């Protein structure tokens, strides 16, 4: 369609309106390809230069019964000409591929939102499956919305007919029709999507043809149907100069691990058992064998971490990735790694719990588990990513701590970060600080008779880290294990005083990491706010958006966001003490708030949301306003 642009200028009669931002939500059956549709819309918006933030929202079932509410899969994206930090509170546009998709999402739409529905799917049977007693398209219940009824299925079938695609197969391309239509509506560039279709389906010519035809048909339908009174344009955002790509949290995390492997010169070994929503890290790393990355799909979660510990013992960068119940299963082995004092990174992509819980939904309820979820005194440093692209930095930071302090580190992400995407300004990798493995090379102690020997638990006096001596060096042969060890020699010891000394040494080592933890920065515009919003992890975007809105109304509020949860930044106590009130929004029942209350004796107030969906900015905004009202 090389003539598309000309047609637009020559024939296009509609008005074009400028928008500063729009929130679009694509919703359909699990099998309708809504994630793909949303992802492509996002990609072309990113290339266009918009800032954006995405929220894939899908059920755990691969194919729940079609047409039912349980089977609805959605993808929400906010695109804007200015900095956005969330996928948006309330969609301005809903693309609904069937009645269930409409019913599941109509409640969260902005007042007066635009609905684009696949009217072909609104037959009696589908309406009944979705639980509609009457057709919402005709019963007046959608009166507050602008509704566009588009026969997407039949138009797609029609346009594919003479390409030799059977109607049944053509029907599956209707998501590309929807994508084409929305691309037209929001004046997205056409070429990136057409190029992508051609590449992606190169080995399936019929599917390629059907998808390409459906996409173009959707686009042209918008132009010619005279159904829509306007198209909209969201201009490019002002970004700092640089090279950008669109990245999801899981991908950024995988790349961060590869970068850390390069920075340390340690070969990367990932031992992992597939589990939602962490599996994409395993998938991504499995593709990157040219980086010397070994990925091992273990028989279970325990073997995943066990193999990573074995690799770490051998001098590799051992990593395991998991979520939900997988974290529970790894607990014993994390305790072993605490005792072995070997570098290890445990990635927990948090999801709703307890037990199987909500496998595809986000939660931040593993913080206390990461902190305390082992028997005995088993302290583990914790790092948490705050945005999808920040997963890259957080992964490097976790490796840095693990290697320097010879300790397992828990890296917390969550389902929202894992699947969400945003533009990422590519870092200059040459500027990343190298990580020194600092392997032991020689004996470090003299026996009473003057013989040089190697003591595996003779610590660095500053960091309290023990030497890391992978097999292969003569004279450094040593045994480690889960039994308590004698301070220094590392031999098995049941001595009571030694045990207490070792317990305190392990705790002091982890506490001492604070020397490498940057002070927490406070965003306090005027410097005289009385309320501090303290967050961690993926609530970052919603808190930033909420704080901006509150400030726009002339109120003062400060925001600090923690990346290091254990140990906390050294200045955190002093920061908390500066504010009359501390509000802690979390997707749990108040875990960070509990930790800071215990540690700093501050009256931290918890703002909880445990629904499997991220905070909306307006929810945090309302809570801030309420607290400010109380202060006044």
């Amino acid at each position, binding site marked *: 369609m090389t003539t598309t642009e000309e047609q637009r200028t020559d024939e296009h009669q509609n008005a074009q309106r400028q928008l500063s931002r729009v929130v679009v939500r694509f919703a359909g059956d699990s099998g309708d390809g809504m994630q793909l549709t949303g992802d492509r819309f996002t990609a072309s918006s990113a290339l266009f230069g918009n800032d954006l933030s995405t929220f894939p929202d899908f059920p755990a079932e691969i194919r729940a019964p079609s047409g039912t509410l349980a089977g609805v899969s959605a993808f929400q994206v906010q695109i804007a000409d200015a900095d956005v930090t969330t996928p948006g509170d309330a969609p301005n546009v809903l693309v609904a591929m069937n009645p269930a998709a409409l019913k599941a999402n109509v409640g969260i739409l902005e007042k007066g939102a635009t609905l684009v529905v696949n009217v072909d799917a609104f037959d009696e049977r589908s309406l009944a499956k979705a639980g509609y007693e009457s057709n919402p398209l005709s019963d007046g219940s959608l009166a507050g919305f602008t509704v566009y009824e588009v026969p997407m299925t039949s138009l797609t079938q029609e346009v594919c007919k003479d390409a030799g695609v059977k109607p049944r197969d053509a029907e599956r391309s209707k998501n590309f029709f929807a994508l084409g239509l929305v691309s037209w509506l929001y004046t997205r560039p056409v070429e990136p999507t057409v190029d992508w279709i051609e590449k992606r389906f190169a080995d399936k010519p019929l599917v390629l043809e059907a998808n390409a035809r459906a996409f173009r048909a959707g686009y042209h339908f918008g132009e010619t149907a005279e159904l829509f009174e306007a198209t909209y344009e969201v201009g490019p955002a002002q970004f700092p100069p640089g090279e950008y790509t669109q990245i999801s949290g899981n991908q950024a995390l995988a790349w961060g691990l590869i970068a850390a492997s390069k920075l340390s010169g340690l070969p990367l070994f990932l031992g992992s058992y597939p589990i939602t929503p962490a599996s994409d890290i395993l998938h991504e790393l499995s593709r990157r064998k040219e980086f010397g990355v070994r990925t091992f799909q273990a028989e279970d979660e325990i073997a995943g971490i066990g193999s990573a510990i074995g690799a770490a013992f051998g001098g590799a960068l051992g990593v395991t990735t998991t979520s939900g119940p997988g974290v529970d299963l790894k607990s014993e082995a994390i305790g072993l790694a605490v005792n072995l004092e070997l570098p290890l990174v445990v990635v927990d992509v948090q999801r709703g719990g307890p037990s199987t819980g909500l496998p595809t939904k986000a939660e931040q309820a593993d913080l206390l588990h990461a902190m305390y979820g082992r028997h005995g005194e088993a302290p583990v440093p914790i790092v948490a990513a705050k945005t999808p692209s920040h997963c890259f930095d957080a992964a490097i930071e976790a490796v840095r701590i693990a290697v320097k302090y010879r300790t397992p580190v828990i890296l917390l992400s969550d389902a929202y970060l894992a699947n969400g995407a945003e533009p990422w300004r590519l*870092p200059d990798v040459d500027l990343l600080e190298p990580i020194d493995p600092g392997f032991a090379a020689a004996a470090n102690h003299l026996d009473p008779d003057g013989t040089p020997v190697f003591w595996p638990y003779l610590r660095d006096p500053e960091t309290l880290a023990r030497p890391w001596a992978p097999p292969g060096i003569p004279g450094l042969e*040593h*045994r480690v294990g889960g039994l308590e060890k004698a301070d220094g020699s590392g031999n098995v010891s049941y001595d009571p005083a030694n045990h207490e000394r070792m317990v305190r040494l392990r705790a002091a080592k982890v506490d001492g990491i604070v020397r490498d933890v940057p002070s927490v920065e406070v965003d306090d515009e005027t410097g005289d706010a009385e309320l501090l919003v303290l967050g961690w992890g993926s609530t970052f975007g919603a808190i930033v958006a909420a704080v901006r809105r509150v400030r726009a109304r002339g109120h003062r509020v400060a925001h600090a966001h923690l990346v290091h949860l254990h140990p906390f930044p050294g200045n955190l106590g002093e920061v908390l003490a500066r504010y009359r009130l501390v509000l802690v929004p979390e997707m749990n029942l108040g875990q960070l708030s509990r930790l800071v209350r215990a540690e700093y004796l501050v009256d931290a107030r918890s703002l909880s949301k445990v629904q499997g969906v991220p905070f909306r900015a307006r929810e945090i905004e309302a809570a801030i306003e309420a607290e400010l009202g109380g202060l006044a």
Partner: protein
Amino acid sequence: MSATAVAATTRKDWASDQEVRWCPGCGDYSILAAVQMLLPELGVRRENTVFLSGIGCAARFPYYMSTYGMHSIHGRAPAIATGLATTRPDLDVWVVTGDGDALSIGGNHLIHALRRNVRMTILMFNNQIYGLTKGQYSPTSEVAKVTKSTPFGSLDTPFNPVSLALGAEASFVARTHDMDRQHMQETFRRAHEHEGAAFVEVYQNCNVFNDGAFEKITGREARSSMLVPLVHGEPIRFGKDLDKGVVQRPDGRLEVVDVADVGEDALVVHDEEREDPGLAFALSRLSRGPYEPTPIGVFRAVRRPEYGASMAEQLADAQERRGVGDLKALLRSGATWTVA
């Protein structure tokens, strides 16, 4: 001395300075001695040798070796060994385990390490009892075993470790016992030579909680008539005057017979390299327990790609086709755009 020559060692060089703390009279002592006496003969280096274990009496083994070692957590040694062996092909990785460690809590890791054929030598000390927890029945204990946890007798059908290993697609499966140092050493040597996962069941006497469990077959008097040595390429014969043999019945069953009754040509010729594990499996079922004639030696030794080597090959292939990974290129592997 060239850089690659291995300095000669003695048994003493392989013993650590730690006091051995097994009960006096434990079968583990003779297994430890067999290993420490074998290693000098193998021409391997201490610094390239690693002993890994889980939990249990057998699992204390690494502390007594002057090599690198790890005493880990219950049942997980094969998983830990998998990570080590696949990242460090230059190391000799030994896993020392027991019947509880390997077959109860660690059963899953054992079978998967075997099917993947990860390069490790697994010595499973089978004493048919839980020793370190002071005498509960184990997954190899006979049915109706009366122990502290089964005062009315155990109900579980035991595992046959050799059958289990064969069923798990193991490429090397052998059995030996703690009363015959020479046989142990020969079996361990074969296991160590094997390119892949080697599984050795070692009948081991726990003189405190299950004394004499194997006495009926490994006792000095009983041995010749109760142990059936498996020798590759040889007819399977045993007995004081080699008067007994093993034949295969038309229904596939193996049976012990008097050689005089059937003639030597009727005996099964042992073929440890047979691709089909069926016959090896049948041999593992020849005896119903350590009170009937029981085969010892190498049941199966076949060549199969080693897991770590295959993994390394995939990495090398990828690097050859795509070049060594470039981080800058990786970050630009998706669509990118530039903001001026």
